[in-house]
């Protein structure tokens, strides 16, 4: 029963985010898509408030945390501005294969659920640090700096960003205890949330191919990879969901309006607050967007909407960690000055082997095949982010760790998984036969 109560807490998140997502500009998304985006925004706000409260030395209480987070979303609503100029965004003319795609997405989520229930997807990292940290924070009713600074918990990566442990601690406080089984179920639940919301976001992208079908292939790829790489209960599915939705919003027709920019910024902040790898993803995506936009007009404002949420979320976390001596640096694997280029062959071989072992690399090969077989050139933004991320991650694996092959075998199939999302998002449809200059839909 604890597990049910633990998960039921998540139903509060869409209510927390509702003050923002009830803004008229977001009516272009489906009701379900909007509710899930609302939950995602609510979660980012909740985690920020939890971290800020910990920094201020206030003990967590459920209702004040939720109310303050909802108030924060209300304040963000003011930053979203009015409706986009020229009326609501043009919706795609159609969504071919929608029913088949929905069925395939449901099957992918069902298989992920069965794999989790069968104990075939449980993440060791849930046992080793995500769960224990959340339990400790729930017991202390704050982010427990003493626990993080203890030499016996040094292997729990004290500097890892707090969103997932904050949410798990919040759920544990509400349910009265931490639930390992419910935590594992977050993998199929978040995969399902992505399956329900991604088509809605892709439908308002520029030149969408077949939003539901493309979303279904991404969801199926993540489902296979998640079960193969054992991600149930760790932060990977949360990271992937934030990255997929945040990056998909950046594919909106140019110029991207203020409300879309803000929501993308919040979701990318969610990615950066979920896992360390989320920060390079968010920064590279924002950087390439600004380069692609090629205009200096209102640059500080455009930048603030995109980067502000990440800067705030991680800023308060770093202030907490450094101020409370919970950790002293944002990393642990060595300095970029000590890279070992001589290991390049070993690293590439180990990455290839690891990716192959997780479902014969199908989660990567299928999205890649979609890009290569498309008659349309891929979208440059996701491809550029994928290339930069690949370079970053490969370079990271050149850091001077003692057993690089083991490190790569343990992590590479997960750290490279955003490429699945990015390749899927890069597929686009043909140019409309009739000029888009027809203006906004009536």
């Amino acid at each position, binding site marked *: 029963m604890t597990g049910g109560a633990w998960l039921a807490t998540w139903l509060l998140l869409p209510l927390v985010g509702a003050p923002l997502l009830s803004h008229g500009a977001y009516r272009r998304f489906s009701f379900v898509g909007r509710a899930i985006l609302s939950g995602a925004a609510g979660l980012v706000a909740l985690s920020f408030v939890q971290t800020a409260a910990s920094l201020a030395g206030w003990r967590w209480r459920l209702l004040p945390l939720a109310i303050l987070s909802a108030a924060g979303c209300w304040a963000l609503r003011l930053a979203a501005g009015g409706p986009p100029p020229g009326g609501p965004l043009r919706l795609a003319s159609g969504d071919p*294969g929608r029913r088949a795609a929905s069925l395939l997405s449901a099957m992918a989520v069902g298989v992920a659920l069965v794999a989790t229930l069968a104990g075939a997807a449980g993440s060791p990292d849930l046992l080793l640090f995500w769960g224990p940290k959340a339990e400790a924070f729930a017991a202390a009713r704050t982010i427990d700096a003493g626990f993080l600074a203890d030499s016996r918990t040094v292997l729990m990566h004290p500097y890892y960003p707090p969103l997932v442990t904050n949410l798990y601690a919040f759920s544990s406080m509400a349910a009265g205890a931490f639930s390992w089984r419910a935590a594992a179920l977050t993998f199929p639940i978040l995969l399902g949330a992505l399956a329900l919301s991604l088509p809605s976001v892709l439908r308002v992208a520029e030149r969408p191919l077949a939003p539901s079908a493309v979303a279904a292939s991404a969801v199926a790829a993540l489902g296979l990879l998640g079960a*193969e790489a054992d991600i149930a209960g760790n932060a990977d599915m949360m990271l992937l969901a934030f990255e997929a939705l945040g990056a998909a919003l950046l594919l909106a027709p140019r110029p991207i309006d203020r409300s879309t920019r803000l929501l993308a910024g919040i979701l990318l902040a969610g990615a950066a607050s979920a896992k360390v790898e989320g920060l390079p993803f968010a920064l590279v995506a924002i950087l390439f967007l600004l380069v692609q936009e090629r205009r200096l007009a209102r640059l500080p404002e455009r930048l603030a909407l995109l980067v502000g949420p990440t800067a705030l979320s991680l800023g308060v976390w770093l202030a907490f960690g450094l101020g409370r001596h919970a950790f002293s640096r944002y990393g642990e694997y060595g300095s970029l000055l000590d890279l070992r280029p001589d290991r390049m062959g070993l690293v590439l071989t180990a990455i290839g082997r690891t990716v192959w072992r997780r479902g014969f690399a199908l989660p990567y090969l299928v999205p890649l095949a979609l890009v290569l*077989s498309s008659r349309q050139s891929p979208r440059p933004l996701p491809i550029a982010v994928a290339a930069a991320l690949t370079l970053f991650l490969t370079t990271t694996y050149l850091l001077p760790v003692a057993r690089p092959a083991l490190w790569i075998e343990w992590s590479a199939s997960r750290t490279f998984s955003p490429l699945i999302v990015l390749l899927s998002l890069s597929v686009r449809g043909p140019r409309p036969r009739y000029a888009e200059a027809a203006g906004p839909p009536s």
Partner: protein
Amino acid sequence: MRRAALPLAGAALLVAAAAYRLPHTRQILEPERNPFRRSLSPFDGPAFALIDRVAADVPRGAKVAIDTSSRVDQETVYFAMVASGMLPGRDVRAHVPWLEEKSWKPDYWIVFGSRPPDAPAVPVLQTPEGTLWRPKE
């Protein structure tokens, strides 16, 4: 519909692959609800099962030593990490010589693997994955 054909075919292939990689139906329907029993790490399933079972018998504040019947230090340290996470409020330490403090006396022992024949302790609970002990007075 033609535009959706390739993504749909890709999704179908991936779903089929994921379904093919599922455990056998009989295993899926097992009553045991251990989310780690078929994890990539061979230690996680047994570790979760044992600690989940004994947690109620180890009171908060207790000192708990973790040992393995294999006496492989790396395994012992790994099990101790898992136990430490699953037993909040207890002082959990690995029973390996290079980590031991002589003044630290455990209130409980958790031993992974087969029951040690020469244990200087009283058995409290036994499961297929290991045993819980209290030191002899």
